């Protein structure tokens, strides 16, 4: 376990994240253009999507896959209720703000997903390809849970807008690319893999480093701006909630009988909090919520917590409980 944590902390990926964090906190002018950050995110999602699909082509559809998918959706829909209750009990956040934060923590962080697959790759621990689909399926149920929870003071103005909102959430870019690449990987299988391997597999670690450098930079900048929004209780939530989510996922994974790698991935997904898809959705659906609070929590505390401590912990636990 300690060995694992150290190996994680001393991986180039994590070190580049720390470098970015340091640069931002030291107010260096190091910066990565927005277009580059978006290219890197697109590449990483496309890569894990495609590889998941190619792996899926080997194994086909199984009952385990259906069970894991159901578990993921359930986790995404139920954890917001836990998160909301916890926030209302332990912090002074308003009902609207608490609901918005709950949506972020029920949903998942595609970037954290990428990070755990990178770490598993380093350790040569395999995971099931269909988890890409599970990740995509876990993005949105939490949003609907949060809209259910949130006080309905501000009525959605137009039905056309709320229809628009559902489409925007269901078809957001990261879901489309993840599922699309998964499908293409499944269709083209080994043949596609041979063609794309130099780009999709060989360059992965290097581009992940560059991406985590950027994540470090924006995490650091977010913390510099956002810390004043955070009471100690709110900050504590951002560490406790991933552990709750991860524990629930561990129980589900054990019940389903997932492998070590898949258990670790499901735990990480449940433990992660969105900071791309859900923040945008909340600006449309819950405009009265203060956007800085969930962003600072998920990007500034939960993401580094998961990257530095959570992921090795989840892998270690998966090692214990999975067969």
């Amino acid at each position: 376990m300690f060995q694992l944590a150290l190996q994680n902390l001393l991986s180039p990926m994590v070190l580049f994240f720390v470098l970015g964090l340091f640069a931002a906190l030291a107010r260096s002018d190091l910066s990565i253009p927005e277009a580059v950050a978006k290219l890197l995110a697109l590449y990483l999602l496309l890569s894990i999507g495609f590889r998941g699909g190619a792996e899926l082509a080997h194994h086909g559809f199984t009952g385990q896959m259906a069970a894991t998918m159901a578990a993921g959706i359930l986790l995404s829909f139920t954890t917001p209720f836990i998160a909301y209750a916890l926030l209302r009990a332990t912090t002074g956040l308003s009902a609207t703000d608490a609901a918005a934060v709950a949506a972020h923590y029920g949903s998942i962080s595609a970037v954290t997903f990428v990070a755990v697959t990178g770490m598993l790759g380093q350790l040569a621990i395999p995971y099931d390809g269909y988890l890409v689909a599970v990740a995509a399926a876990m993005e949105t149920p939490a949003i609907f849970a949060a809209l259910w929870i949130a006080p309905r003071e501000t009525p959605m103005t137009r039905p056309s807008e709320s229809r628009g909102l559902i489409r925007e959430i269901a078809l957001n870019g990261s879901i489309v690319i993840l599922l699309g690449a998964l499908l293409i990987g499944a269709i083209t299988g080994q043949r596609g893999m041979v063609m794309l391997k130099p780009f999709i597999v060989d360059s992965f670690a290097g581009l992940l480093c560059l991406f985590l450098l950027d994540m470090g930079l924006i995490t650091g900048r977010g913390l510099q701006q956002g810390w004043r929004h955070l009471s100690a209780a709110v900050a504590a939530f951002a560490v406790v909630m991933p552990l709750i989510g991860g524990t629930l996922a561990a129980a589900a994974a054990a019940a389903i009988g997932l492998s070590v790698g898949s258990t670790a991935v499901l735990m990480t997904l449940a433990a992660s909090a969105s900071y791309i898809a859900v923040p945008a959705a909340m600006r449309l659906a819950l405009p009265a919520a203060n956007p800085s609070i969930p962003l600072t929590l998920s990007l500034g505390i939960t993401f580094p917590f998961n990257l530095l401590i959570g992921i090795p912990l989840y892998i270690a636990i998966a090692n214990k409980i999975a067969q």
Partner: protein
Amino acid sequence: MIVQPGKGAMQTHLKKRIDIVVEAPLLQRVTNQLDRENVSGYSVMPIIAGRGHEGPWTSEGQLGNASQMVAIVCVVDPARVDDLLAATFDLISRQIGHVTVTDVHVVRPQRF
């Protein structure tokens, strides 16, 4: 207004330029609203950083657009300003953003 009568004097006409600064996720809602109001057109201009009541932000290295702002510029006939302000006020007042109105002169008034 007649700018400098003489060889090339061009008649110009008063219009209003409306600048709407809103959160990026809201962009399409606002342009849909402008479409519904049948404005002749609008242009979207990027904002790369800023500061407001919530503190500073920058687009550098960002993956999502939730914390970003964009500017929508729309040149309209003065007679339309009030309707447009009313139409966008609903949207803007619930979200982060603001609207300014400026007098401008144009050469081809029928375009707007």
